[in-house]
Each structure stands twice: as C-alpha cells, then as structure tokens.
C-alpha cells in the first residue's frame, strides 16, 4: 500500500480523497493556490504546499509544480480527483516518468476511451450500442434520405466539421428532409468551409443514465450498477440518484455488461463511468466514457456500501477486486444534490464570498461531502460547488423525504446557494414520479414559478420581529461601547472580498 498520496485537486473532492487516505493510514499532501491557503483541503491534510496564484493554469493545472511537490514531499502516488487534470493523459505520463503511481487509468486507456470520437469507435468495436447513424459524411441527399427513412424520424443532421450547434438540424419528418439538408449543408459551408454532413437518430427526451465500472490490473472488471443523472441545468448535472426509477434488473444487467465489455476492450483499469442516453423505449446508446471518479460517485457508494476512493487506491496499489459483479447487491435508494454558491433567484449568478454562518444537517440517512466551513471565504476563481448533500433511504420516497428534511435544516448566510432550486425540484410531480429527462429541468425553469405555498401564519410577524431585533443588535454593536456579540458587519465582508480580489491576476 502507498505511504503518502498527493491530492492534485481542491474543494470537496480533495477532502473526500483525504478522508479515504486517513482511514487507510496513508499520509496526505495537498496543494493550494494563493486564495486557497485556508481551504478545508489544506487544513485537513498532513502536508500542504503552495503551487501558485489563483488562476488554475498557473497552479492546479501545472503538472511540473505537482511533480515538484510530489518529489519534495516523498509521495509515492497521486490522486487527480475530477476536473482540472483528471482526464489529461499528460498527468499519468508525468507520474510514470517521476516514478509515482497515478491513481486512475493508464494514459493509453484515457486516450482510447476519453475522447468522444475515440470512445465511440471503441464502443462500436465492443458491440456497445451507439446512437444509430453514420459517422462518415454522406455524399448525396438521396442516400441520406433513404437512410433516414430506414432509421425512422426524427433524425439529426450534423456538420462533419461542426461544433456549437452550427450546421445542425433536427428533421421531424420525411417531408422536411430535403430543405433541412440544404440548410444544414449551406450553414456548414458558411461556418466551416465544409458542407459535408452526417446523420444520427434524434432521441426524443432521452435520459442520462451511467454505469459505474471498476477494473483491477488482474483482469477483473465489474459494474456497480447505474446512476440516473437526467436532472441537468444546461448540460450540468444537479441531482443524481441510484438506482434509476426506470431501470429494470434486466436492463441493469444489459447496460452493465455493455459497460464492462467496453472497459475490457479499452484495457481499462481503475474506476470509470460509461455514460448512456436511454430513450423512452429503454433502448440505451453509448454517449461517452469518463475516465475518472465522478462528482456523483457517492450515490453508488450509498447503495452498494463500497468506498470507491479506497477501491481506486487499492486497485492502483495492484490489489485484486475482492468481489464479483454478482455479489454486489444494491440496497435502498440514494440521491445527491449539488449545493452551489449561486443564486437561483437571480439568473444563477455565482455568489462567492465569506460564509458568515453555516449549519449543516445531520441525522439518519444523511451524508455530506463538504469542502467549506463557517468563516471561510469562497473564492471566486473556481467552480462554485460547495458541498454535496446525499440522502439514503429504504425507498425513493423515503430518500426524497430525507433530502427535503435536510435541505430545510441546511442554513448558510453570507453567500447565496441553490438550495431553493432543490426545494422546488423535490416537490415537482414529474420528478416525484421519476418522469425526468435531460431537458426536464431547463423546461421546468422556463415555466413560470408555480404560486408558492403561502408561509404558515405568523411568518410575516416573525420576520418583522427578527428584523427589528437584529437591526437593533447591529446598531448597538457598532455604537461605541456596544456590548453585543459582534456579527461580522457587511463592510468586513466587503473588505474580505476586496483582499481576495487583489490576488487576482
């Protein structure tokens, strides 16, 4: 087993990895940028080293600095977390050169599976269903239309050279095919100087369901079941759960087999996730592979009882997986919400700043993977993920009830969070019935807010009394000779932010 692990990340995932190391008796080394000196992952680590200014490209993305820290502190392994360099094949290569074990797949497996196109080719070779269509351009519209008829409408036309939605057209019916083809091709020509398009089946309201796999270096590759991640805002997952409300044991087995087949075909070792789109008829299509730990890995941990980070470390140390796929029996239901420092009532604007007060829910069935504490200033330089709130229950209903209870107990002041978004999602009838798809949340947010349940009688009066009492305490405290406990005043917060801004390039 390793003696000391470098955690090449920050925030909640760095803390998560650090906790696993501590439980395994492994020393931890954190790295930090100038604005992260007081971050939780620095406080909890055994050792921590400054690696540069706030901007990621000058700190958390600097492989050379990471290698310097690893060597100087005597680390024998490195965990990349997610984001930053986690899917950059240059990092495992640098680790190999430095004689440090990278906790993740090999550079080769990362490249073979990580990119969308390489992954799709591998999927075809491994006989894993992909979205029907061509990946080569089609020369003439007649062939294309025949193919579309064959495939069934709607279909999607996509520019070969495409990106950002240019040269893309949804074709709802055969009648619309010819004009859509002309539009797509001419738009593609204008945008990329290349008119060629190809054809894909257009999935209506698909779900995003992914399979967690684990593979050791001794040829065992297992599926730990699925996660349902269809609740997304602008392609960003915000609620994840396991099991999926629609996956049957039969489908679970089929998707798990496909994911394992893909993992084997790519020579994959360590933890990885195979993402699928699932249509209304429960057909599944390969989307991409994430060659790393996912943000939402805790929901799989809660239903399987496994600790994925510890297993990643054990696999990297050359251990054999101690179980077969058949022995993994998910229990109950788990759901995660991602708490962000952003204001759902104000266009989801980011809300960095000093956390004035913070009380996190606890009790039965509640887990928090956190990266923040009271008094800490959330820097404006990174992803706004504060913590993940994860609930477990015997049923989906109990899990949702626990999550709602926990959200009601979660209080934080000084910054805004998206807690109210989850309060709303967790009462939407469609969500409660599990009728969700990747477009569902954006559609929900586009609808006018339903009239809120009126606050219970007395709330208004209580608010008035609180406002008056707080205001008078504030005035007393700021008056000379005031004896009240001094709530951090607004100017102080402002100053904290200003100091932090001064660190910016």
């Amino acid at each position, binding site marked *: 087993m390793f003696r000391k692990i470098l955690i090449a990340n920050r925030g909640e995932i760095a803390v998560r990895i650090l906790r696993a190391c501590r439980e395994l008796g492994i020393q931890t080394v954190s790295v930090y940028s100038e604005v992260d000196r007081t971050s939780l992952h620095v406080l909890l680590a055994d050792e921590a080293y400054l690696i540069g200014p706030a901007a990621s490209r000058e700190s958390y993305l600097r492989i050379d600095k990471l290698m310097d820290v690893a060597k100087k502190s005597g680390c024998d392994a490195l965990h990349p977390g997610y984001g930053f360099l986690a899917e950059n094949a240059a990092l495992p290569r640098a680790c190999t050169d430095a004689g440090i074990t990278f906790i993740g797949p090999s550079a080769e497996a990362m490249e073979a599976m990580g990119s969308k196109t390489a992954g799709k080719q591998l999927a075809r070779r491994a006989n894993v269903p992909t979205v029907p269509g061509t990946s080569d351009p089609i020369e003439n519209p007649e062939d294309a239309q025949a193919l579309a008829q064959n495939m069934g409408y709607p279909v999607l036309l996509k520019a070969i050279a495409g990106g950002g939605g240019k040269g893309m057209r949804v074709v709802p019916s055969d009648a619309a095919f010819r004009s859509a083809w002309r539009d797509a091709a001419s738009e593609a020509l204008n945008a990329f100087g290349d008119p060629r398009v190809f054809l894909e089946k257009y999935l209506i309201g698909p779900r995003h369901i992914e399979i967690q796999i684990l593979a050791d270096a001794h040829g065992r590759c297992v599926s730990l079941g699925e996660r349902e991640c269809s609740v997304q805002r602008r392609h960003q997952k915000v609620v994840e759960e396991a099991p999926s409300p629609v996956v049957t044991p039969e489908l679970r087995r089929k998707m798990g087999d496909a994911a394992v087949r893909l993992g084997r075909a790519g020579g994959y070792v360590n933890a990885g996730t195979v993402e699928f789109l699932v249509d209304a008829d429960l057909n599944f299509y390969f989307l991409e592979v994430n060659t790393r730990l996912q943000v939402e890995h805790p929901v799989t941990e809660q239903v399987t009882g496994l600790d994925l980070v510890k297993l990643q470390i054990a696999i990297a140390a050359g251990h054999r997986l101690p179980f077969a796929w058949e022995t993994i029996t998910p229990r109950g239901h788990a759901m995660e919400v991602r708490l962000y420092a952003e204001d759902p009532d104000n266009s989801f604007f980011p809300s*960095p700043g000093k956390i004035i007060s913070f009380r996190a829910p606890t009790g039965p069935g509640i887990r928090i993977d956190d990266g923040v504490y009271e008094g800490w200033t959330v820097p404006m330089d990174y992803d706004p993920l504060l913590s993940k709130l994860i609930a477990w229950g015997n049923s989906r209903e109990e899990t949702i009830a626990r999550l709602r209870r926990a959200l009601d107990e979660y*209080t934080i002041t000084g910054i805004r969070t998206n807690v109210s978004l989850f*309060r709303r999602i967790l009462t939407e009838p469609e969500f409660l019935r599990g009728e969700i798809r990747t477009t569902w949340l954006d559609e929900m947010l586009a609808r006018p807010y339903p009239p809120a349940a009126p606050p219970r009688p007395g709330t208004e009066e*209580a608010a008035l009394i609180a406002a*008056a009492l707080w*205001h008078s305490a504030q005035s007393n405290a700021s008056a000379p000779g005031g004896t009240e406990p001094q*709530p951090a005043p607004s100017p102080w917060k402002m100053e904290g932010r200003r100091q932090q801004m001064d660190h910016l390039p």
Partner: protein
Amino acid sequence: MKFEIQLTGPGVKRKHVVRLERNGDACSSVAIDGEAIDANAVQIAPNAISVMLGGQSFEIHVSRSVNGALKLHCGAHEFSADIIDPRAWRGRKHGPVEVEGRQEILAPMPGKVVRLLAAVGDAVEAGQGLVVVEAMKMQNEIRSPKSGKLERLLVREGQNVNAGEALAWVE
C-alpha cells in the same frame, strides 16, 4: 424601541410599525402596528434569531443584501425588509435610495469586468446586456432594467468589482 419596517415577500409588501423591548440578546413585549402580541425572540447566532409566536417556533436567518436591505430567510420563504431606525431619524442624511427615473445598476456578485457591451450615451433597451462580469468560471451578463440612455459607466474592462458596487447608470 420602535421601528418602521417595509416588509416585502411572497405576495406581501406593507409597512409596519414594530415596537419591542430588548433585554440583552432577547426581546419580549412586542407590538406590531400598535397591537400587543404574544411573542419573544432571542438571537441564537450572529445571523440567526429564534422567534416564538404563540407556540409557533420560527428560526430566521438574517443577512444584508447588496442594496442594504435585510434579507430574512424563514425556511423556504424569504422576505426583504427596509428599516427606518428611530435613532437614524435624528440627523439622518438620506432615506432608502429610491432614485426616480435613473436606475443604478449594481454588481450582483463580486467578479471581474471582462467586457463592456454598450458605451456612454448609447440608447439601451430593457434587458439589453451592459456589462459582462466573470466569476467562478462563468460569464454573467448584467442587463439594463429599463429602456433609456446609458448615462454613466462606472467600471472599465479588467476591473475587479465587489457585490453591490455600482456598474452603470441608466437614465
């Protein structure tokens, strides 16, 4: 102590007069709009107050919003309160800012101004983007709340701003 409070919330916008007697961190003897009510309140943390109203227990978290008003969170509900302090009546310089016609556009979060989308003197539409502020890897367009003329731009590209800092005036 007497406070005049303008309370804004879901379906509520009213001015009230609250009288209370403080006793250290706590208060009892409360009257709202002249009517005595069975309530007591106690500050349980710098930004949290427990209010007992009859037997109903409320925990209210208080913070200050960028425009200086108080934000009051009570479970899933949120109110905003503007307070006119009796002591502030003596020698107070200005009431709550309520500029007629001219709108001051404030930064809703701290960040860095990465782009100006209009120039001083431009005619702007309601909803038109004026300034792009970047924070936490996101670019956020700050829009004009009304149609009119961009009267002043108070920031330049590359400048860091605090939450609540004025960015521009639209007349």
